[in-house]
């Protein structure tokens, strides 16, 4: 049998690829060239080795017998007897104490894991919004209702907490005629400006897309859609809770201020959350 030429050639290709990579490393920095040369270096040798194995190695087919895996009952019994021999099982009280000591030792060794994080306490129920906190953009500039264009949207934070994840809020200005907010929130929309937590109540993504024509906020992660005019009630997608609305007013200087924190937890739900 004449050895196939391409098997020889592929080893040469591999060598050229490797040498090329060494040379190229010293002069260039294109990932594309590096990838191709490395591909040639590895691929050439791979083809050569496989060609060698499949075309040039005449090896016989062989047969191997399985060991008997059928369990040998007497061996199992002997092992069990060895494990449960009298010297071990005689002292029942000691066995129980050893088991108990193992359990308490486990607890003792696990307890430092609690240092990994603080306890949640009230932090899932609260944000940094307080009564009187001005709504500022990420640069700290306070906002007047007239700074928000009609049908416009702006991301705001409580003054002093610019960029704080938990307190991120969107302000949207809507024709007040269109607003149909839940009872008790009539005063939370000065000049048609309404503010909602920007954290999706489904999986916590920032609800950043506003469909001005439909007056809907859309979460780009899982497409939960909230109707802004009715107080951001969910109308489509997996979110089940409305986005919490920020109680809001205008202060004596004409700037938008919060009149308190959100009245429900912001972000995704959890089992023992306060649903009042």
């Amino acid at each position, binding site marked *: 049998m004449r050895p196939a030429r391409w098997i020889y050639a592929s080893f040469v290709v591999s060598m050229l690829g490797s040498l090329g990579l060494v040379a190229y490393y010293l002069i260039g920095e294109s990932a594309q060239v590096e990838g191709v040369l490395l591909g040639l270096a590895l691929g050439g040798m791979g083809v050569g080795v496989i060609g060698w194995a499949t075309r040039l190695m005449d090896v016989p087919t062989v047969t191997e017998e399985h060991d008997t895996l059928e369990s040998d009952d007497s061996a199992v019994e002997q092992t069990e007897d060895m494990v449960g021999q009298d010297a071990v099982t005689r002292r029942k009280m000691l066995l129980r104490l050893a088991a108990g000591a193992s359990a308490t030792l486990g607890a003792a060794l696990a307890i430092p894991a609690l240092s990994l994080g603080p306890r949640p306490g009230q932090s*899932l129920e609260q944000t940094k919004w307080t009564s009187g906190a001005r709504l500022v953009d990420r640069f700290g500039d306070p906002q007047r209702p007239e700074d928000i264009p009609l049908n416009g949207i702006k991301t705001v934070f409580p003054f002093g907490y610019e960029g704080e994840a938990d307190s991120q809020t969107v302000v949207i200005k809507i024709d007040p005629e269109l607003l149909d907010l839940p009872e008790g929130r009539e005063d939370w929309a000065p000049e048609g400006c309404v503010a909602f937590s920007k954290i999706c109540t489904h999986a*916590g993504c920032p609800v*950043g897309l506003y469909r001005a024509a439909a007056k809907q906020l859309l979460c780009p992660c899982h*497409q939960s859609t909230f109707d802004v005019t009715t107080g951001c009630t969910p109308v489509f997608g997996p979110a089940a809770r409305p986005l919490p609305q920020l109680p809001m007013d205008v202060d004596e200087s004409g700037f938008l201020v919060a009149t308190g924190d959100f009245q429900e937890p912001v972000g995704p739900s959890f089992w023992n959350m306060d649903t009042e």
Partner: protein
Amino acid sequence: MLKWIDERLGAAHWARKGLKKVFPDHWSFLLGEIALFCFIILLLTGTYLTLFYRPDAAPVIYEGPYEPLRGREMSAAYESVLRLSYEVRAGLVMRQIHHWAALVFVAAIVAHMVRVFFTGAFRKPREINWMVGVTLLVLAIGMGFTGYSLPDDLLSGTGLRIAYSAVISIPFVGPYLGFLVFGGEFPTEGIISRLFVLHVMLLPAAVIALIGVHLGVLWRQKHTQFAGKGRTERNVVGKSFWPQQFFKSFGLMLLTGAALALLGGLVQINAVWNYGPFDASAVSAPSQPDWYVGWLEGAIRLFPAFEPTIFGVTIPSMFIPGVVIPGIGFTVLALWPFIEQRVTNDRALHNILDNPRDRPARSAIGVGGILYVALLTIAGGNDVLALTFNVPIEAMVWFLRIGLFVIPVLGGFITYKVCTELQSSGARPARRKRGTRLRRNAEGGFEEVPSDSHS
């Protein structure tokens, strides 16, 4: 040399036995090997990456060569990934090979698992290795997800945010668990370094250990084989490990590396500089996870807005798709050998593989399961698909919600029919025609031999 070792360890006998190990020949037995080789490549490229990456959330101002981000505040982690991509020679190609290898790693594991499932290779005595394999799949997904999160770009931060929300949705202990894992309320400074430890130490160590178990058990139990001449439940027919099988496997490793090098060089992946640094109040649309998390993302998207409050306790809408469905899915998958054993009452040892057509019920369930996961994966990209094909996202979601219950059942039913039909007709549509090939003999003449003869 060998003598020196043998005199101390008595290893020559053992080594010879190893070299003589019989490998039955079938292309589908190579899928698991590809997964192993991907893992080796992941270890090599990953080690290189750790030498440049900084697992540090501390803010820095970017002053590197990438113009659009110059002057931006970002984490040291993100900055180090930019530096690796733009300033370290061969850094970008290493990072892209690493990412591609991760995608192919999980894909190869899944393909291997599908092969094992449909051929019944998980049956007694191989239940242990099946469960080890399922655990390896979970760990591989975990490694992928933690790795995906390390660059601390906008997209990876979004993924972490969703994972955090899933943890929070666990009954009652969720918030405590979330705070322990993340070190406080999301986003936290410490999470990057924690993910780093998981990604480069704990998870790879677990994977290495389990690969050892997987191969050790395989070694002990020997290979399965398809039915054929001279093959019985009591033997293995094939080629010995040395030299041919070793050379073939080694060549396959090189080819896997070559394919990943070409992908990593030519096909851009996870261009984190386009996403920008993580910012809790920003997100990009569309945002897509790596493919192997797509089914989870899809489940989360499709699950309806159902969040009942019973006796003052709220069941978060993330809980069922984000915790229960993957939990049940992986549990059923891991226990499948025992479930099947319970149903079929088959407790015999099996070393000959099934032809999928001979087990129509199992094949139907397998196809149904694959369709279910595939539909969820499609749902994970429904916004992109809706945009691409210009269908309303609402229609897309409702089609998939209903399709999730109809299509897998339909697919399973058709599979069952096809299997029983094939059984009765005896047709072999997937089998290559048994042709002949010409061989030149020593005298210079030609002779015709069956193309599958190896002699």
